């Protein structure tokens, strides 16, 4: 136990370190393997060994029509992700503020969010699709699809706001009010700047969860696919490393977003320290 022992590391430490390293290998190993395999030579297959190194499969994605409208699916996913992100940030922010107090009706809303989180995605999808059909409206990725994505991103946004607001001291807001700030002024100059890093975290969740969402979209997006649905259908009929090339590209994009978000959080925290 680190807190107790002042002496050197015991055997437990080394065993646990080995366990941890193995877990990280287990977590990342397969992903790293497909990154390498996506640069497979032209004659190579879906498994090792590598037969040369090339960007053939990446070029193939853009050149060939074999993979359907990948660019379209990608555009739709990015757009859905951006819209879902904006809505998630704004809606979770205000809901989080409301939940600082217990009020009549707060329980049911909280449990509805939890239900949304734990429900199998395809059930939500089936329900949304059926609801639109009953209303006589055709499912569209920007309407029913967006709703399906929000049912997934909003509960996460709310939970993060709970965690963020835990460390938020309301006396700052009171001080501003006592100094004569209007409610809008308090929000603009006190609450928002302090909660800014937390809101970036909510944005990161909103964007990436929506971008990678698959089961909830399935029966709710209508005729035009999002990228994850598109990739899922490709898994059954593409048997070349091109599949891994898609994986490499989309994972690289997700990782880029994570780096960007953490960079923004870090920058804002450094600014605060000054």
């Amino acid at each position: 136990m680190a807190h107790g022992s002042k002496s050197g590391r015991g055997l437990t430490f080394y065993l646990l370190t080995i366990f941890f390293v193995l877990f990280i290998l287990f977590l990342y190993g397969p992903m790293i393997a497909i990154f390498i395999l996506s640069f497979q030579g032209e004659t190579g297959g879906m498994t090792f060994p590598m037969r040369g190194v090339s960007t053939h499969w990446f070029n193939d994605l853009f050149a060939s029509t074999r993979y359907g409208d990948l660019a379209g699916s990608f555009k739709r996913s990015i757009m859905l992700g951006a819209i879902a992100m904006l809505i998630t940030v704004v809606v979770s922010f205000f809901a989080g503020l409301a939940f600082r107090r217990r009020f009549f009706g707060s329980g049911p809303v909280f449990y509805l969010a939890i239900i949304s989180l734990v429900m199998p995605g395809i059930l939500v999808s089936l329900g949304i699709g059926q609801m639109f059909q009953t209303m006589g409206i055709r499912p569209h990725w920007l309407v029913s699809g967006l709703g399906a994505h929000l049912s997934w991103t909003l509960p996460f946004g709310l939970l993060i706001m709970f965690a963020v607001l835990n460390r938020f001291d309301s006396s700052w807001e009171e001080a501003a009010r006592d100094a004569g700030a209007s409610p809008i002024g308090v929000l603009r100059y006190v609450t928002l700047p302090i909660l800014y890093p937390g809101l970036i975290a909510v944005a990161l969740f909103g964007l990436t969860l929506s971008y990678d969402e698959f089961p909830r979209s399935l029966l709710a997006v209508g005729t035009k696919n999002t990228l994850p649905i598109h990739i899922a259908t490709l898994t059954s009929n593409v048997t070349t490393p091109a599949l891994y090339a898609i994986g490499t590209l989309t994972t690289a994009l997700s990782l880029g977003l994570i780096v960007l978000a953490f960079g923004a959080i870090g920058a804002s925290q450094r600014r605060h320290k000054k």
Partner: protein
Amino acid sequence: MNKTIISWLQVLPMATILIAFVGIPLATVVSLSFWTFDGLEYYPDFTFENYTKVFSSWVTWKIFFNTIRYAVITWAIALVIGFTVSYYLVFHVRNLKIQIALFLLCTIPFWTSTVIRMISWIPFLGREGLFNNALMSAGFVDQPLEFLLFSDFAVILTYVNLFTLFMIVPIFNAMVKINPNVIEAALDAGASQIQILWNVIIPLTRTGIALGTIFVMTLVMGDFFIVRVMSGGQSTSVVSAMKNNIDQLFYPQAAAMAVLLIAVVVFMVSAILRVVDVRAELAK
């Protein structure tokens, strides 16, 4: 303005979206389960036929059993790994910056595509995959092991790979909040490491364990894609059976099964929430 009214206004967008895209859709699924399917189309009705069909078929019970088996095995493995990893990060990594960095390392895959991470196992597990090649070149086996890909083994391996981080995050959060003085005190009172683990750390992380359990169980029970691809179509879970029904337009029957699944999930989650008050614990 009244404070309650302000709270209502603030929560209104969230409530509206959740009611429109979760509440009403789930109610729709429930009502759909009473509709009739005549072999070509389905239309509104109030019949229990779908339920009798679902309940009377032994296949239903078999796939429910199979799904719960997957969920329990995955949960047990994820719990052991998640607890051990969190324990290591919280109590054995002394540098706070390294601790945060390693924790992030465990969580980054959460923000990447599950479909892609599932596919990533295929080059490992196949007949000519990395495992088999390694085992054969080391001389452990003469022939490639067939059970690695397209089997229960592959399904559970993928589940553990994808979902363990949902166990790590809540357990880590709970463990980090344990006051070091409590452990000091136990040490001073002469407790052994095992006693501290069993009597101090595990009870104080039970919220994290409960949350992780909810996540892992519901994720496994809600999956249809991994079980379909990684078992090579040989194994069925509740949701993959439902998906088959949907593909064949047997919507009402799929809905009846869905209602049964909702009942199981809600029962399980509320049982866990009864033991630990998650909302109160989150507010700590």
